[in-house]
C-alpha cells in the first residue's frame, strides 16, 4: 500500500488501483477513492499550506467540506484553479496541486516574518495606521496588503465557448438533507408512505456517521438498497444543499462523477433548484476545535476527522497521536485507531471521569483526566504536546499528531435561513434550531440527538410526523436490528485553554482568542462586530469548526452567557460554489436570446451590419464599412427616389372589443374614438406622472378593431402598461389585447417614387391621394399575399408601410425590390432611417428618455382637452409648465464644417460651463449642408434663432451652433402628402 500512513483497508479506497499525483512538484502515489488529503496523509505529509495573515505552517484539520487550512491550487485543463479543498478533492491520475500563499516555497516562506511581527499586527491594526500621506494608501500600503492577502491565485484558461453547465429543476414532497442514519431512516419512512422524496447527501456516499462505525455497515447497505427500490425516492450523493430560500425552494449542488461527467460533455457540477413541500434537516453535526496555544501546528486535527481517514481510506493520522477531547463520541476514534495498531500516546480529557475514558483504559491507553493541553512543540509539525493537569507537574508527551474534539455543533445554518430560532442546549453546549412547523423539521445530530441508533429512530419519527401532515400517514416500518448506541458521559464544555502563545479560533483568517478579547475591549463586543473587526468566521469555511468557540471566548470576555452572545448569522452558501455552476448554461453566446427578423438571412446575405437593440438583431447599414458614406447613400436613395426598410421590430398590439376605442382614449393622450375606419393616427402615451412613455401610429381596422404600433425598444413595457391598466383601472371595459409582433413582417417603402412601387404590388387598391391619403390604412393583397397597407411616414418622404404574415415576408420583400428596380430602390438600415427622421425632427427613444413631457417635445396641442387619460392630472403640475424645462429643438453648426456629437452639451458663449442642455441625436444631412441634430435645451423654443456653443470636453471639441426648429426638412409636410 502506498504511503506509510496506510494502515488498513478503507471503505472508499481500492487498494488495487494506485494513482500518481504531484504536490508542490514532488511525485506521490495514492489510491483510487482517496481524496488529495487522505493521499497526502497516507504519504506522511503534514505541512500543506500557509496561513492568511501570519503565513504560519498549516496542515489538514478536517475530513470534509469544512476544511479551513488544506486549500490548494490545482493545475488542470482549465488552468490554475485556486482554493480547492484537499479534503474533498477526489484524487485522480496525474492530479497536480500546489500549496498556496507562500513565497518562495512552502517550507521557507518570507512573509512568515509577519508571525514574528504578529504582536504588532493585532486584529484591525490597519484601521489605526497607514493614514498619511494621503496618496500613499493606493500607491504603497494597499498594494502591499492586497498582495499579502488573498489565498489562491487564479490563472484561468478560457475557451472560446462556455464550459458546459446546467441547472435542473426538481419538485418533491419532502427534501431530506443529509443521509446519515437519521436521513436514511427518514427517507425510507417517507418513501413507504408513497411520498416523493429527494434525499441529498453532500458526501460521495450515503451513510454519514454510519460510515464511521463498522457495526452499521449491514444496516446501511440494506437501507440504501431499500431506497433504491422505492420508485418515489431519489437519492443524490455528492449533492450539497447550498441554501434555503423560502417558499420551499432550495439550491443544491451536485458534483458529477467521472461517468456522468463524460456523458454530459465534461459537465462538472449541476445546480439543482429544488421545490419541496417540506424539508427534513438530517444534516448532522460538525465537530469543533479547542483553542489552545499551537492548535494550528500541522498534525493537529479534529478527532472525528481522524476516525474518518481511518475508516474511509484506511489512513492512520500519525504514528503516535495524543488525543485532547471533552466528549465520549471521540473515544470511538481513540479506540478505532489503537485497534488499527496505532500507538496512542495518551488521551487528555478535561473531565474527571467518563465512560469513554474507562473503555480506553481497558484497552490499555493512558487517559490523563481533568487535564488540558497547554502547548505544542514543533513548528512545521507536532513533535510533542504539553499537558497540564491539576496537582501534577506539566508533562511533555512525545507525539506526531494531536487529535482534538471540543464536541459537536448541530448544523443549523440552513434552518436559520428559514427563520428558525436558535435555542441553547446545555447538554451539548451548542445551539439547536427550531423550524417554523409549516416548513419542516430537523432530526438526529442536527438537533442534538447523540448516537446513530437514536438518530435513526429520531429520523423515522420526524418522517412519520411529516407524512401525516402531508396527508399520507406512514406505516411503521419496525427497524429491529439497529446496532445499540453505547452509553455516554455528557461532554464538559471546553472552549479555550488559557496559556502563553497564539490560540486560534479561526484557522484560515488567523484570528486568535486574544484578537477576540481585543475586539471586545475596543467595543466591538457584539458577535457581529467582533466578526467584522477580527474577520473571524469570514473565511471559506465560514467558521464551521471555530465560530462557536470564538463566540464563547467573546462571552467570557463580556462576562455573559454564550446563549446571550449567540453566533454569527449563517447565509448561503453552505459550501463555496463556482460561478459556472450558479450561472448555468445561459451565458456568453447564450446570455440572452437572439431575436431574429423574419428576413434575417436575407439581410445577412445582403451584407448588412447588424446592431443589438434589446434582444433584436437589426440591420444597421447594408455595408461592412463603418462611417457615414454608406449610410448617406441609403438615405439619399430615399430622398431622391425610393428605398425599403424592414420595420418588423416595431411592437404590434391587436386591440379588439366593443370598448376598444374608449380604452385607447384613456391610454393615449390624444383621441382615438374619433379616428375613422381605414385611417391611422399618430399617438402619444404618457405615464401617470405626465412623462412620455411611448409613441407610434394606431390604425382602425374595424369599428371595434385597432392595431397599435409601439417603438421597438418600448414594446414590452408598452404592452405591460396596457395590460396592467386594462385589467385594473379599466377592468370594466370589454377589450381583448393580443401581442401580434411576431405575426407580421412590416416594411416601409419610402421616397418620391414610393407610390409607383407600391401601386405595382396592390393592383386592386387605388393609391391616389383622395382614395388613399396620408394616414390611410387598409387590408390589401400585397403581391397576392393578404396583408395590410398603411400610408405613414417616419422618413418624412411619401411612404407606405406594408404588413404581411411573417411566413410570407420573403415573397413580399422580393416583390417590393422587383417593383422598385426601375427606380433603383435600395434597402436601407437603421442608421439611414435615423438620419432621415432627425432631419425631419421626428423623435425616438433618444428623445423619449423618460424625463420629457408632451410639451417638452412640442406635443402640447395633442393633449385631449376633455376626458380623462393616463398622465392628464400630473401634467398640470407647476414645474411641468416651467418655461425653463428642456425642450426639443434643432441644432445646426454655424460653420459648414462643424461636427455635432450625441452627448454634446450646449453652453452660452463665453459665460462659463453651465450646461443648458445636450444633443440627443445628430447626423450629417442628406440635403442640408453639414450636420443636423436634435437637442433638449432649457427654454429651447425661446432660443430658436440664437447661437450657442456645442461642447464635448471628452473629445476636446467645441462648435458654434444655431438653434433652429426641430423640423429642419420639409417643415410644411409637403412631401409626405405628395
Amino acid at each position, binding site marked *: 500500500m502506498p504511503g506509510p500512513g496506510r494502515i488498513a483497508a478503507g471503505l472508499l479506497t481500492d487498494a488495487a488501483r494506485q494513482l500518481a499525483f504531484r504536490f508542490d512538484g514532488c511525485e506521490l502515489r495514492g489510491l483510487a477513492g482517496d481524496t488529495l488529503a487522505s493521499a497526502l496523509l497516507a504519504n506522511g505529509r503534514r505541512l500543506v499550506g500557509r496561513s492568511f495573515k501570519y503565513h504560519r505552517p498549516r496542515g489538514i484539520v478536517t475530513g470534509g467540506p469544512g476544511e479551513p487550512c488544506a486549500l490548494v491550487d490545482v493545475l488542470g485543463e482549465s488552468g490554475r484553479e485556486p482554493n480547492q479543498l484537499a479534503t474533498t478533492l477526489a484524487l485522480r491520475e496525474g492530479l497536480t496541486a500546489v500549496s498556496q500563499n507562500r513565497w518562495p516555497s512552502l517550507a521557507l516562506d518570507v512573509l512568515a516574518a509577519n508571525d514574528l511581527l504578529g504582536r504588532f499586527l493585532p486584529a484591525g491594526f490597519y484601521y489605526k495606521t497607514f493614514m498619511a500621506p494621503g496618496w500613499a494608501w493606493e500607491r504603497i500600503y494597499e498594494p502591499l496588503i492586497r498582495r499579502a492577502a488573498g489565498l489562491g491565485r487564479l490563472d484561468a484558461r478560457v475557451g472560446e465557448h462556455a464550459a458546459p453547465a446546467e441547472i435542473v429543476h426538481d419538485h418533491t414532497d419532502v427534501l431530506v438533507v443529509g443521509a446519515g442514519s437519521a436521513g436514511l431512516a427518514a427517507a425510507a419512512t417517507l418513501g413507504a408512505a408513497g411520498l416523493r422524496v429527494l434525499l441529498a447527501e453532500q458526501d460521495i456516499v450515503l451513510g454519514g456517521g454510519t460510515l464511521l462505525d463498522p457495526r452499521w455497515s449491514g444496516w446501511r447497505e440494506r437501507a440504501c438498497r431499500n431506497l433504491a427500490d422505492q420508485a418515489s425516492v431519489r437519492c443524490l450523493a455528492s449533492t450539497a444543499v447550498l441554501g434555503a430560500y423560502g417558499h420551499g425552494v432550495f439550491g443544491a449542488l451536485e458534483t458529477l462523477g467521472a461517468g456522468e461527467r463524460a456523458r454530459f460533455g465534461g459537465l462538472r457540477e449541476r445546480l439543482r433548484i429544488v421545490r419541496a413541500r417540506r424539508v427534513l434537516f438530517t444534516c448532522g453535526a460538525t465537530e469543533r476545535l479547542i483553542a489552545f496555544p499551537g492548535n494550528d501546528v500541522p498534525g493537529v486535527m479534529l478527532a472525528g476527522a481522524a476516525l474518518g481517514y481511518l475508516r474511509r481510506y484506511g489512513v492512520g493520522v500519525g504514528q503516535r497521536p495524543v488525543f485532547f477531547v471533552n466528549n465520549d463520541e471521540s473515544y470511538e476514534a481513540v479506540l478505532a485507531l489503537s485497534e488499527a495498531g496505532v500507538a496512542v500516546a495518551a488521551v487528555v480529557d478535561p473531565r474527571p471521569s467518563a465512560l469513554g475514558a474507562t473503555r480506553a483504559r481497558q484497552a490499555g491507553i493512558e487517559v490523563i483526566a481533568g487535564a488540558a493541553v497547554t502547548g505544542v512543540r514543533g513548528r512545521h509539525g507536532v513533535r510533542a504536546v504539553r499537558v497540564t493537569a491539576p496537582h501534577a507537574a506539566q508533562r511533555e508527551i512525545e507525539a506526531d499528531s494531536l487529535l482534538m474534539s471540543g464536541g459537536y455543533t448541530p448544523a443549523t445554518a440552513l434552518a436559520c435561513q428559514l427563520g428558525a430560532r436558535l435555542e441553547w442546549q446545555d447538554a451539548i453546549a451548542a445551539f439547536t434550531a427550531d423550524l417554523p412547523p409549516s416548513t419542516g423539521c430537523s432530526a438526529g445530530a442536527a438537533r442534538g440527538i447523540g448516537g446513530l441508533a437514536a438518530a435513526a429512530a429520531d429520523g423515522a419519527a420526524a418522517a412519520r410526523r411529516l407524512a401525516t401532515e402531508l396527508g399520507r400517514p406512514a406505516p411503521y416500518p419496525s427497524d429491529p436490528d439497529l446496532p445499540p448506541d453505547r452509553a455516554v458521559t455528557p461532554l464538559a464544555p471546553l472552549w479555550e485553554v488559557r496559556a502563553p502563545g497564539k490560540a486560534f479560533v479561526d484557522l484560515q483568517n488567523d484570528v486568535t482568542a486574544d484578537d477576540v478579547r481585543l475586539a471586545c475591549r475596543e467595543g466591538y463586543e457584539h458577535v457581529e462586530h467582533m466578526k467584522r473587526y477580527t474577520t473571524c468566521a469570514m473565511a471559506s469555511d465560514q467558521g464551521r469548526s471555530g465560530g462557536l468557540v470564538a463566540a464563547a471566548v467573546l462571552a467570557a470576555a463580556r462576562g455573559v452567557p454564550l446563549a446571550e452572545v449567540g453566533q454569527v448569522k449563517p447565509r448561503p452558501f453552505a459550501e463555496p460554489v463556482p460561478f459556472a455552476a450558479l450561472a448555468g448554461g445561459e451565458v456568453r453566446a447564450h446570455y440572452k436570446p437572439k431575436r431574429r427578423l423574419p428576413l434575417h438571412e436575407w439581410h445577412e446575405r445582403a451584407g448588412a451590419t447588424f446592431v443589438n437593440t434589446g434582444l433584436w438583431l437589426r440591420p444597421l447599414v447594408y455595408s461592412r464599412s463603418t462611417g457615414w458614406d454608406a449610410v448617406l447613400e441609403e438615405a439619399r436613395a430615399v430622398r431622391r427616389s425610393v428605398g425599403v426598410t424592414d420595420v418588423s421590430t416595431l411592437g404590434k398590439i391587436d386591440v379588439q372589443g366593443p370598448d376598444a376605442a374608449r380604452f385607447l382614449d384613456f391610454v393615449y393622450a390624444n383621441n382615438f374614438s374619433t379616428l375613422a375606419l381605414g385611417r391611422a393616427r399618430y399617438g402619444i402615451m404618457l405615464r401617470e406622472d405626465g412623462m412620455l412613455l411611448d409613441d407610434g401610429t394606431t390604425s382602425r381596422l374595424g369599428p371595434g378593431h385597432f392595431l397599435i404600433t409601439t417603438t421597438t425598444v418600448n414594446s414590452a413595457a408598452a404592452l*405591460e402598461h396596457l395590460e396592467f391598466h386594462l385589467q385594473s383601472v379599466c377592468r370594466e371595459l370589454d377589450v381583448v389585447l393580443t401581442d401580434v409582433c411576431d405575426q407580421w413582417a412590416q416594411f416601409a417603402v419610402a421616397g418620391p417614387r414610393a407610390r409607383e412601387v407600391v401601386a405595382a404590388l396592390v393592383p386592386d387598391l387605388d393609391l391616389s391621394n383622395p382614395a388613399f391619403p396620408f394616414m390611410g390604412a387598409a387590408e390589401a393583397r400585397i403581391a397576392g399575399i393578404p396583408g395590410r397597407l398603411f400610408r405613414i411616414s417616419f422618413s418624412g418622404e411619401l411612404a407606405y408601410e406594408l404588413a404581411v404574415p411573417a411566413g410570407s415576408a420573403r415573397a413580399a420583400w422580393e416583390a417590393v425590390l422587383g417593383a422598385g428596380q426601375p427606380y433603383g430602390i435600395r434597402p436601407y438600415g437603421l442608421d439611414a432611417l435615423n438620419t432621415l427622421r432627425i432631419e425631419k425632427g421626428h423623435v425616438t427613444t433618444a428623445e423619449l428618455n423618460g424625463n420629457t413631457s408632451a410639451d417638452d417635445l412640442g406635443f402640447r396641442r395633442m393633449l385631449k382637452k376633455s376626458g380623462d387619460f393616463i398622465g392628464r*392630472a*400630473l401634467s398640470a403640475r407647476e414645474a411641468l409648465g416651467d418655461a425653463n424645462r428642456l425642450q426639443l429643438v434643432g441644432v445646426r453648426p454655424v460653420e459648414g464644417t462643424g461636427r455635432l456629437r450625441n452627448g454634446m452639451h450646449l453652453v452660452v458663449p463665453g459665460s462659463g460651463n453651465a450646461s443648458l442642455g445636450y444633443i440627443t441625436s445628430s447626423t450629417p444631412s442628406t440635403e442640408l449642408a453639414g450636420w443636423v441634430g436634435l437637442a433638449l435645451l432649457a427654454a429651447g423654443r425661446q432660443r430658436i434663432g440664437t447661437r450657442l456653443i456645442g461642447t464635448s470636453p471628452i473629445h476636446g471639441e467645441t462648435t458654434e451652433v444655431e438653434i433652429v426648429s426641430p423640423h429642419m426638412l420639409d417643415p410644411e409636410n409637403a412631401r409626405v402628402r405628395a
Partner: protein
Amino acid sequence: MLRIPCPWCGTRDEIEFRYRGDAGVARPGPEAPLADFTAYVYGRTNPLGWHLEWWLHAGGCRKLLKVERHTLSHEIRWVGAPDQQPPPAAAS
C-alpha cells in the same frame, strides 16, 4: 424565491411574473383634485407586514393578480383577481 399561486396556472416561480406595485392605492376619478393624483402616484404605505400588491403573470396566462404578501416573511396568504378583495379574516 417567491412561488406565487396563480389562480389560473397554479403555483409558479417568481420569474414568470412582473411586479406592478401597491394594489392598495386606487386611481382617483377624473374630477379629483391634483393632490389626490399625487398621492395615487407617489404616496406609498410601504408597510413592514402584509402588503396588497399587483403581479402580472406575464410568463403565463398574462392575467393581473392581486396578491397579499408579508414583506418580511414573504408568506403569501391570499391571491385573487383584480376585482376581488382579500377576506376580512386575512385583511390586516
